[in-house]
Structures are given as structure tokens and as C-alpha cells.
């Protein structure tokens, strides 16, 4: 074990002598990014469920819970609680009705609330501040770190000028790529997630983070909603994970002489 580094250093001395010509070197690096949240007090994490809305093609609550649990199992030291997903929307609507004297919200059936935008989420967000409720959930699952929040996955379309690259052949027969601007109608999805981290011991919110991603596709692509959801989650998941555990960002830099 101790001989290895010294051998390496010896080989470096040789390398310095040999590689004297180049004046810069590209080198791969991995930058460790410290977790945003100190989770050392917790041994378990419970992805409880989300209040979700938007398109009916994807169950934002179930899919987000499944995906986050599987990612945390692979990339976090916390033990992931494998339990049924909480029907948070039902819980929150029950509470809304109780609070407003059992009056259903105007224009929305109490058993199937329609959530199509951020404003529709607001009547349910009080659930995240209900420390007693979360404390009871925490006691049930041995005081884990609880992750909950909102998921909004909405269809989106946009028309306008788009810059694209076009291959052209000049009079001398040479191929060249040049940027062109053209009018395009595109459609896609917006994924807005708000992650709320709750201390299962006290039921208190300890951190929250709102993330938003959108993706537009050519009108003729017919990209399924679920595959777009996973594409957008690919962007969001590293940022979610960096809240709970140290992440290493790979890249390269240039060393100079």
C-alpha cells in the first residue's frame, strides 16, 4: 500500500523529463458538491407522496414517488422506506372541506379535484404546514426524513422563430453548416416540482426547493407524455439528489505550464 504512491511519484519524475514539450494538458476532474441539507440526524427517508396535477396522461404523484425512491436507493446512504404512497390530495381536500364547513370548492367536484395550474394547487398546500399530521406519519415510519411537495406536469405549445443548423454545399462543392431561422410550431411539456423536506420527528418543514424544466418538440414528433416526463425528470433528479447527498460533477480542465 505504501510502496504504490512512491512508485507513482518516481514515474512522475520520469514523466516530467519526457513530457517537456506540451504547454497545456487537459485533465478529467470530479468536483464534489456538498449536500445542501444536513441529513446526518436521519437514517431513513420516506418519499411520502405529492399533490399532483396537469395532464391526465401521467400520474405525477405515483411516477415521481417511484422514480425518487429508486434513485435514492442507488445514490443515497439513507434507507428508503417502502410504503404505500400517501393520497395527499384526498387528505388535503378532506381537510379543506372540514375547514370550510364541508363546502365543496366552487366548480370542482370534491372527489375529483382538477389541478391544471399553480393556482389550483394553492388550496391544498396547507397540508405541508400541518406539523401534527407529519409528526404522526413520522412516528409511523420511525422518524424518517419525509419528502413531499407538489408536481405539476402540463402540456405546453409555442410558435415562433427558431434557430436551426442547415447543411449547405457551396459553389466549390464544399459542405458547410450554417444557422438559419425559421418559423416553427412546437409542443411539449413543462414540469414544475416543489420538494418539501419535513423532519419526521417534529413534523416541521426544514427545507424546500422549487424546480422547473420544460421541453418542446417538433409538432410532428408525437412524443408520448410519459417519455417527456422522464426526460424532464432526468434534469431535475441530480438537483434533487444534491440536496440529500454529496454529488460528484464530472468535467475536464486545462493545466498549464
Amino acid at each position, binding site marked *: 500500500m505504501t510502496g504504490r*504512491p512512491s512508485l*507513482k*511519484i518516481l*514515474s*512522475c*519524475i520520469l*514523466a*516530467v523529463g519526457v*513530457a*517537456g514539450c506540451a504547454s*497545456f*494538458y487537459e*485533465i478529467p*476532474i*470530479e*468536483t*464534489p*458538491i*456538498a449536500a*445542501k441539507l444536513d441529513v446526518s440526524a436521519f437514517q431513513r427517508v420516506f418519499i411520502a407522496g405529492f399533490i399532483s396535477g396537469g395532464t391526465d396522461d401521467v400520474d405525477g404523484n405515483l411516477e415521481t414517488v417511484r422514480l425518487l425512491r429508486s434513485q435514492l436507493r442507488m445514490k443515497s446512504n439513507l434507507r428508503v422506506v417502502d410504503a404505500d404512497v400517501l393520497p395527499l390530495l384526498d387528505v388535503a381536500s378532506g381537510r379543506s372541506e372540514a375547514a370550510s364547513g364541508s363546502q365543496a370548492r366552487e366548480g370542482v367536484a370534491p372527489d375529483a379535484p382538477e389541478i391544471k395550474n399553480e393556482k389550483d394547487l394553492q388550496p391544498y398546500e396547507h397540508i405541508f404546514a400541518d406539523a401534527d399530521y407529519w409528526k404522526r406519519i413520522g412516528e409511523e415510519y420511525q422518524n424518517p426524513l419525509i419528502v413531499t411537495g407538489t408536481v405539476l406536469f402540463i402540456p405546453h405549445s409555442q410558435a415562433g422563430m427558431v434557430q436551426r443548423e442547415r447543411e449547405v454545399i457551396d459553389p466549390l462543392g464544399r459542405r458547410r453548416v450554417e444557422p438559419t431561422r425559421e418559423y416553427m410550431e412546437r409542443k411539449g411539456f413543462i414540469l414544475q416540482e416543489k420538494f418539501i423536506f419535513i423532519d419526521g420527528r417534529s413534523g416541521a*418543514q426544514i*427545507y*424546500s*426547493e422549487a424546480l422547473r424544466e420544460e421541453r418542446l418538440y417538433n409538432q410532428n414528433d408525437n412524443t408520448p407524455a410519459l417519455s417527456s416526463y422522464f426526460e424532464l425528470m432526468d434534469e431535475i433528479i441530480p*438537483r434533487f439528489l*444534491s*440536496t440529500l447527498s454529496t454529488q460528484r*460533477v464530472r*468535467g475536464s*480542465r*486545462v*493545466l*498549464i*505550464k
Partner: protein
Amino acid sequence: MPMRLLSVVVLVAALGGAVYADARSDAKAQVEFGIAVAQRGLWKEAIYRWERATQIDPTYAAGHNNLAVAYEHEGMLDKAAEAYERALKLEPDNVLVRQNFELFKEIHDRTTQSQNP
């Protein structure tokens, strides 16, 4: 008398230049050794070499740049930012240092963007 003064000035200038050249070549040797060890994954040794280089010759931008890269790799992001800034102050037009710094800032900004509620 003026002739004597002139020769003293010339001697001081020559000695100064020689000392500077010596400092630069010593620092360069440290920088080269640091590069060789970093390429073999011995980043702590590389940091030691590049810190030595910047002590020997604080005006050597390459030493500061390489030190910044090593600090970045070790997760010492504040120190990395300072070292990049020193390198750029010494060589503001160095494209390689600037490119490293831009890539570093992308990561650094990401870590400082998060806010508590």
C-alpha cells in the same frame, strides 16, 4: 562617479533579473511536477507542488490556475475561486484560464443557488 553609479544600477538590474528568472524556473519545475502527479491522480501532492510554485513566484499565472483546478477537484470551491481570480488578474487574456474559470463558475453557481424557505 556617475560611471560607478551606472555600473551599480546595471548590476542590481542584472541580479534582479537573474533572481526573477531563477524564481520562475524553480516555480516552473514545481508546476511541471505537479502536472505529472495530478495526471496520476495524486491531487494532494499536486496541491503541495503548486502551492510551493505560487510561493516561489507569485506572478506565475499557471501555478495559480493549476492550484485552482486541484482545489476544485478536492471540493475546496472558495479557495478555487480565489486562485482562478489571481490567475486571471495576472493574465486576463489567457483563454485557457478563462475557460476553466467559466466551467468552474457553472458548478459554483449551482451550489450557491439553493435557498432555504
